[in-house]
């Protein structure tokens, strides 16, 4: 059961996205043996009320093999009700945040309050390090999320399941201590673009159980991250863990 923990659906405002529908998603997943995934709304990133985007996403993925991840901007009032409604109506499996787009610190009181709520509801937090290579951004220049801030944040939340999305090799290495010592901290594969044998290099320093497969489809090429794992010269059981086994924790909530 291969799973993709980093999927987006919706309209990306900065360039044409050719494969933007649920049917496209299903097709690329099927072609690569992936049976489901955790989906967030692109629209929710940009709508002033993110929940409107999640209402749209629910209409698209309800009753499908895809699990809904709610987008929250904790600097907006009322997100607490969004989570409750998301649980009741959408059966959400987690919350995703975009500090570089919504311009706040992970160390802010609002994020602390969000983390406390997620622990109460036993929901994981998906932290988006970036969506676009910063060099390729257009119009909107996002605020960088420093690894030092990320390290301090995850260290303060040892009892919360956290998945870091689109984090790169060097950044992972800078967080080696936290990733290996915090049992509920994970990262996805969508940022593993640097180095020819990046998974092999990672596994010399990081436990394989910390890596979960995430593509960031449709902004990124799914086949690229699939190859990064599938073509690695590592054990088949290790690959299976990355592609799906390690993501089981996401369903215990």
């Amino acid at each position, binding site marked *: 059961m291969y799973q993709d923990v980093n999927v987006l659906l919706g309209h990306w405002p900065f360039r044409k996205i050719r494969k933007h529908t649920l049917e496209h998603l299903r097709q690329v997943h099927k072609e690569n043996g992936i049976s489901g995934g955790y989906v967030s709304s692109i629209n929710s990133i940009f709508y002033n009320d993110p929940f409107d985007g999640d209402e749209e996403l629910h209409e698209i993925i309800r009753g499908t093999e895809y699990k809904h991840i709610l987008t929250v901007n904790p600097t907006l009032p009322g997100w607490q009700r969004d989570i409750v409604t998301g649980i009741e109506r959408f059966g959400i499996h987690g919350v995703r945040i975009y500090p570089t787009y919504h311009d706040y610190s992970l160390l802010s009181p609002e994020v602390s309050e969000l983390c406390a709520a997620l622990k109460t509801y036993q929901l994981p937090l998906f932290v988006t390090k970036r969506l676009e*290579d910063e060099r390729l951004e*257009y119009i909107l*220049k996002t605020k960088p999320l420093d690894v030092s801030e990320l390290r301090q944040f995850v260290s303060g939340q040892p009892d919360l399941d956290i998945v870091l999305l689109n984090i790169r090799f060097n950044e992972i290495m800078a967080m080696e201590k936290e990733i290996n010592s915090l049992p509920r901290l994970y990262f996805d594969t969508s940022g593993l673009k640097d180095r020819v044998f990046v998974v092999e290099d990672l596994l010399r320093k990081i436990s394989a159980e910390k890596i979960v497969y995430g593509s960031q489809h449709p902004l990124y090429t799914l086949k690229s991250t699939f*190859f990064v794992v599938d073509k690695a010269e590592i054990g088949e059981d290790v690959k299976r863990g990355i592609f799906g086994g390690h993501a089981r924790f996401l369903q215990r909530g």
Partner: protein
Amino acid sequence: MIIDVHTHIWGGDYESSTRQLLEASRRYGISKLYVSGLKSHYPDEAEVESLNADVHRFMKEHPGLVEGYCYVSPVHANALDVLKRGIEDYSMAGMKLWVATFCDDPRAFPLVEQCIEYNVPILIHSFHKAVGQLEFETTGIHVANLAKRYPQAKLLMAHFGGNCYHGIRATRDCPNVWHDFSGSPFRRDDLDYAVEQVGASRIVYGSDMPIAYLVNWGQVEEADLTQEEKEAIYWKNAVQLFDRNYRLS
């Protein structure tokens, strides 16, 4: 078959870079590597000489697999001699320009004219960045300027010009510009966009190894391409580009 037109011996680290290039060739079935040596952004003459010597050594150690680009900094007084040594003595297949000057800097003109004489391609680092643009870092605009000044020059714009919606737009009307999508960006739509704009016949496969490889391979496999277009990008276009009997009309 895969011909990778954009790889490096990086940072002067011969052992590590060549080991990775050879291992990747074994694992992924790469038939030919075109290699240049790069280290500091603004190298002195001795550094360039050393980097080119490394590439020549790699070529000699693996004939048939490894071809070389002669790396030249147009600011150096001996730049033309470096190019002549690379092509004539080292049997290198093309010239590499990086970030010492914009590619349309007049100091590059004698080098370009010599490459036309040799009928070898020029691989040009090109990267338009929203953040971190280097002082003399070429973008698609500079490549287009050079292409129009020298329509007989076979130019290869690297990285789709960084942001393809900038680079490809600049060069799409220049028939003497080929494009590679080497490097680490692997956005889902970039290759489809490039094919729509310039056609599959002016796109060649490059990775930027040892910096990246699998993400580039995945891009070709997932793009909306026919098998014929994939083969053109994987190797056929490169064979034509590096054929010294193939001249632009």
